């Protein structure tokens, strides 16, 4: 099974400069260490479970650019209905990645409900995602993901990985400042 660092190295390599990336929980700091793009937005100090729907809103507003959300499995379980909501008003430019490590990592790797039993890809299939994929090996992911990213979505990509030891993330300034700066970045690069 891949590590998050191996997985993120592949995503970072494949990410075009104009792709929006929304991160949350244990993905936020590791992704920020790899990329300081103004099109990154860390859904941190915010509401758990609401990175994917926030990303959906951006994808609907900005159909000209691809929007990735790096969601957690625990976060997804807190708002499973969001998968259905996405498929009801499907933004073809949204890629919903789930980092499945089966734990609430930032609070000390407690097992999530359904760990090892619940199948994330089955949730996505059931919700009606036109594209559902799963990877547990960075090499395969590196080989197959580029073609997936070229197709119309919304896509659901489950990334099975080993739990890490990421502490709880926080922001160095108010979320409102981050949102305003992010909005300006989207405006600037969208014009």
């Amino acid at each position, binding site marked *: 099974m891949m590590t998050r660092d191996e997985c993120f190295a592949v995503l970072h390599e494949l990410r075009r400069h104009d792709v929006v990336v929304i991160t949350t929980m244990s993905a936020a700091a590791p992704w920020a260490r790899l990329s300081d793009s103004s099109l990154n937005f860390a859904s941190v100090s*915010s509401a758990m479970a*609401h990175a994917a*729907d926030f990303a959906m809103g951006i994808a609907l507003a900005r159909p000209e650019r691809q929007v990735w959300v790096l969601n957690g499995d625990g976060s997804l379980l807190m708002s499973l209905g969001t998968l259905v909501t996405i498929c009801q008003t499907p933004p073809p430019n949204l890629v919903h990645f789930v980092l499945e490590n089966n734990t609430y990592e930032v609070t000390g790797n407690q097992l999530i409900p359904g760990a090892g039993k619940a199948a994330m890809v089955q949730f996505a299939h059931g919700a009606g995602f036109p594209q559902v994929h799963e990877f547990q090996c960075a090499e395969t992911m590196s080989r197959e993901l580029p073609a997936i990213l070229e197709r119309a979505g919304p896509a659901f990509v489950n990334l099975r990985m080993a739990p890490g030891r990421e502490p709880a993330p926080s922001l160095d300034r108010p979320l409102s400042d981050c949102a305003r700066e992010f909005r300006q970045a989207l405006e600037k690069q969208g014009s």
Partner: protein
Amino acid sequence: MPPKIITREPATDEATMRERSTRIVAGLLDLDITHAVGVADNMSRFIFDELNEDPSVSVVPVCREGEAWAIASGLWVGGKRPVVLIQNTGFLEAGDALRGTAVDMGVPLPALIGYRGYRSLSTPTPDSVASLFEPTLRAWGLPYHFLQENKEGETLRAAFMEAQSLGQPVAVLMT
């Protein structure tokens, strides 16, 4: 003996609700709203019906009200002008989503919220939602306006302007 199931409260007649919904939709269109995000209830169903027929507004139905705040926040960050339409029951459910997205992100977002139970506020009722609603709005620091009959457009504009000037969501209550 099991409880007898009764109708929750007398419904306003359909023709009146439709007329009112038409005025509300006109008010929303006048504000150049681009997206309506939420969950329909008995009061808002005709608003959703009319918005679904209007090509200038995209309706985004959600499974749970918390999603409405997050999606609307994403839409605003992306440069759109959304409105949230939910009922007070869902509002109570969605507290952390409201706090963690629209409020903390400073999103100037008008929200039309159905006030279930308003007419039975001063009477004994097993439905507690109405008695908790306004205290919760105040506790969460959300300014609110009551939607006034035949002044729907003015009320919506006032709420929208307040949201813009405060940089935060403002509620409009539908009784």
